[in-house]
């Protein structure tokens, strides 16, 4: 594919994704924040469903060597970077995806978050140019690199290569785990619902008793 076609396909995918997220009010930040802060799981469930479909899809195609998996070394910076990101997205009230979606709805705050995401990236470019860490893609080895705090590269495909077991088998195991999480959420929701009903019934009973005593 030529770069122009790639850009067109990407724009088309982005447009459909943006439209679907706008119509469903899906937000990755809410998927984590609401589960942690408010014990509500509307977005968390949607995220888990997508992850299950993708795990089967990606590992299925990876089993036959198809697809374009991400390839770069990971390490301490992967954890630390997403840790900072996690704090940032809760404070900003949106992640990079929802900032674009909310900006499209006319949200100036989201646009402001986006501008400062760019500023944050530029600041990092200055820090990197002084530290040269984490290693640049050209110097990544795919192996453990202890001095650079890197664990190398591994995914379902490298597991398949090492163990001789098709990638989809690992994918199915991960999907089963995600399905268990999903079931746990459904159970918790059912318990929350039952509790809510119980409170409402008690409230109604009290109200009825009060009305009866007034009438008497």
């Amino acid at each position: 594919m030529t770069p122009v076609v790639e850009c067109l396909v990407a724009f088309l995918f982005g447009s459909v994704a943006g439209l679907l997220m706008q119509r469903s009010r899906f937000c990755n930040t809410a998927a984590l924040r609401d589960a942690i802060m408010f014990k509500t799981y509307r977005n968390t469930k949607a995220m888990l469903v997508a992850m299950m479909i993708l795990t089967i899809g990606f590992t299925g195609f990876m089993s036959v060597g198809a697809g374009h998996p991400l390839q770069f070394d990971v390490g301490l910076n992967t954890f630390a970077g997403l840790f900072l990101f996690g704090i940032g997205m809760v404070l900003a009230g949106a992640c990079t995806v929802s900032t674009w979606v909310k900006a499209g709805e006319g949200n100036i705050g989201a646009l402001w978050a986006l501008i400062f995401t760019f500023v944050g990236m530029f600041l990092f470019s200055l820090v990197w140019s002084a530290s040269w860490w984490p290693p640049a893609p050209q110097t990544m080895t795919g192996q453990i690199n202890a001095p650079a705090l890197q664990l190398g590269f591994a995914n379902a495909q490298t597991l398949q290569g090492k163990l001789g077991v098709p990638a989809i088998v690992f994918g199915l195991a991960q999907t089963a785990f995600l399905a268990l999480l999903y079931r746990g959420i459904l159970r918790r929701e059912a318990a929350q619902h039952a509790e809510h009903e119980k409170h409402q019934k008690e409230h109604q009973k009290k109200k009825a008793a009060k009305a009866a005593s007034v009438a008497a």
Partner: protein
Amino acid sequence: MEFFRKTLDPIIALAAIAVLDIFMFLLMGAWTVGGGETMMTGLMAQAVLGDELNRIPFWSVVFPPHADYWKIYISLGMLFGAFVGAVASKEFYWRVPRHLSEWVLITIGGLLMGFGIRLAYICNVSTFFGLMPEMNLGGYLAMSGIIAGAWVGSLIYKKLLEGDV
């Protein structure tokens, strides 16, 4: 049209996006956000600084700015798609944060997100919908990081809501 009148179930929306993402994975690579923004940052910095940008090695070694980088267009597409959805469902209107504290939080949040994405080489979308489904080791590191970060962020947020800070 019904689609623009009622809120769509996010499970249906995300399932549809996941199926499309599988096509993206086969064609170019999984849905990702962050690389495009970095490229935009580089292009903007180049427009402002010109050749001076060469003095910052990051922009020649890690991310030489190119306008034909496909990841840029995923983000622009999301902006466009959301705009179309908002206008068609009469949900587009200018929303401006009212309190100074909101502006401060958004500024700090944005800076942390931008810095974090580049430090990790990925963002949350690649974590949930790229690295994790590919069962990349980085996905598990990133997932632990973002959950821990969201937890700390929520603690800070709660404290702020309660007016303790």
